[in-house]
């Protein structure tokens, strides 16, 4: 039995539409027009305990709505979901006691209180025994490097510091499942790496199931074995990252630094970019092998350097969204 099951989840929102101008504003008072937006239109997946799943999609795709439904915050219009044997929105209080949630754009810490007091409040809210809490807190403080920040009021923390404190806050009660909604949004490179390393450890060493939404494809490449892509309220793809690449395109890129400014052309490859003497060729390895293409190119042109790579994940995802 998978730990998390979503079946045909559907949720639509009614958004009031307003006609422009003064007349429109007056008309809106009398007769409002509503537009129905389908945030989710039948989303199904299942996740086993201990998985680390990336849940990605463009803005407005339904990522956060899914997370909020699974976290018991929103009630879907249709479909069912079960997390650890519970329907989140029916048994919200029992459910949320066993999960952790971080919404990167918001903080769950008390703005005016020092971090340590926020953690202590959460201990009371989650009814964590004092000794278990002391142990958990010491571990989180060490892993997240919070030692110097504990006495600082949350409003004085930088975004990266706040995110680390928020991660600690979501784990005070040692949940089995962690929902991370854009945990790296707006963070600098160092903080991103710290968050990633922490999430990875949590998943590997403690076996915490993690569902992560992000727009940062480096997060996905660094962390997730499995990626669920959502667009327009529907699942577009679900599987390992390598499979996602294969599904969208088998394309590889050959980048060549030419010694002169000559033009490259090859019947089995297309030039997708050219900056000065650097040329990037896209090719399908099932049509022409990389070795064969390199042989042809080096035979025809003086080459300073070359390398073959996968297209960046952004490109893959953009194609999937576009489809």
């Amino acid at each position, binding site marked *: 039995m998978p730990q998390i099951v979503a079946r045909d989840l559907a949720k639509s929102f009614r958004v009031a539409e307003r006609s422009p101008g003064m007349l429109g504003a007056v008309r809106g008072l009398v007769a409002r027009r509503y537009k129905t937006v389908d945030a989710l239109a039948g989303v199904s997946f299942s996740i086993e305990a201990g998985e680390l799943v990336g849940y990605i999609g463009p803005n407005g795709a339904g990522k956060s709505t899914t997370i*909020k439904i699974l*976290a*018991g915050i929103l009630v879907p219009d249709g479909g069912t979901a079960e997390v650890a044997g519970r329907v989140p929105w029916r048994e919200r*209080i029992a459910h949320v006691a066993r999960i952790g949630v971080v*919404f990167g754009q918001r903080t769950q810490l008390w703005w005016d209180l020092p971090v340590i*007091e926020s953690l202590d409040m959460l201990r*009371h*809210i989650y009814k964590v025994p004092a000794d278990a809490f002391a142990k958990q807190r010491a571990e989180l403080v060490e892993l997240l490097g919070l030692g110097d920040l504990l006495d600082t009021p949350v409003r004085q923390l930088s975004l990266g510091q706040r995110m680390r404190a928020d991660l600690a806050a979501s784990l005070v009660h040692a949940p089995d499942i962690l929902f991370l909604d854009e945990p790296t949004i707006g963070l600098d490179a160092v903080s991103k790496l710290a968050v990633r390393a922490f999430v990875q450890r949590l998943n590997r060493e403690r076996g915490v199931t993690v569902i992560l939404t992000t727009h940062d494809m480096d997060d996905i490449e660094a962390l997730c074995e499995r990626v669920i892509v959502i667009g327009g309220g529907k699942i577009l793809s679900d599987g390992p990252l390598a499979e996602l690449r294969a599904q969208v395109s088998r394309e590889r890129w050959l980048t060549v630094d030419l010694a002169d400014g000559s033009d490259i052309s090859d019947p089995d490859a297309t030039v997708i970019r050219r900056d000065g003497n650097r040329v990037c060729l896209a090719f399908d390895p099932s049509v022409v092998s990389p070795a064969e293409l390199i042989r042809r190119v080096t035979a025809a042109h003086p080459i300073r350097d070359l390398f073959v790579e996968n297209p960046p994940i952004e490109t893959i995802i953009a194609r999937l969204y576009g489809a």
Partner: protein
Amino acid sequence: MGYLAIIAARFRTLLQYRAAALAGLFTQIFFGIVRIMILSAFYAASRSQHAPMSLREVVGYIWLGQAMLLLMPWRIDEDVLRQVNDGSIVYELARPLDLQAVWLARGVAWRTAPVLLRLVPMLVLAMVVLPIFEPAWALAPPSAAAFAAWLVCFAGAIVLSAAISALMNVTLLWSLAGSGIPMIVGALATIFGGLTIPLVLFPAWSQPIIYALPFAGLLDLPSRIFTGNLPAHDVIYVLADQLVWSLVLIAFGRWLLARGVRKLVVQGG
């Protein structure tokens, strides 16, 4: 346990605003004296021999009203308004707590902390300092029985005020701007809670209506107990009024909140 922690944290936060409390204290003393002068003038000009409340009781009633100003549910809880507007309300729902109970706990702290901060200096001033300068403006000390009875319905008033505040929070799920309904409730509570004039001074025909509203239990009934306008043993009726209204408002709030959460829209990340 979790709810107590919320009350305690809220208390600590609210007690930080000492400068605001001091400024509020002076403003309320000033307006207390103005109100006393106005009502004294009314009483001096009145030809009626049967005022439902003596001037001495009215003066006491006004001082209590000034001291308990912040007990009145006339504003929305800014933090809750912010949570609803910026969406961090999601975290309240992501915790193993009952949202309405959280709001009641916040309400209790919010209505208690600032009142306690002002109540003591205000009572000392009105009962001890003013008699030296202007005895006519002074608050007459209550009998021990009246004081004890007042303490009981002071607690009842806090619960009632928290119940109204929690209900106002629920309305935020429908109207995001947050100012409309609290403004209406605030105006009603000010007039029918007894903050403008004692409710017994309203026309006789309106008395049954005014006392049938939930607001009389906030300030009017406790102040009448304190000043001796109502006998101390009537505290039982006052408490019953406060508790029945609290239960009705809490029950209504629960029903409304359950509907609100079903239609909740939390936009963006």
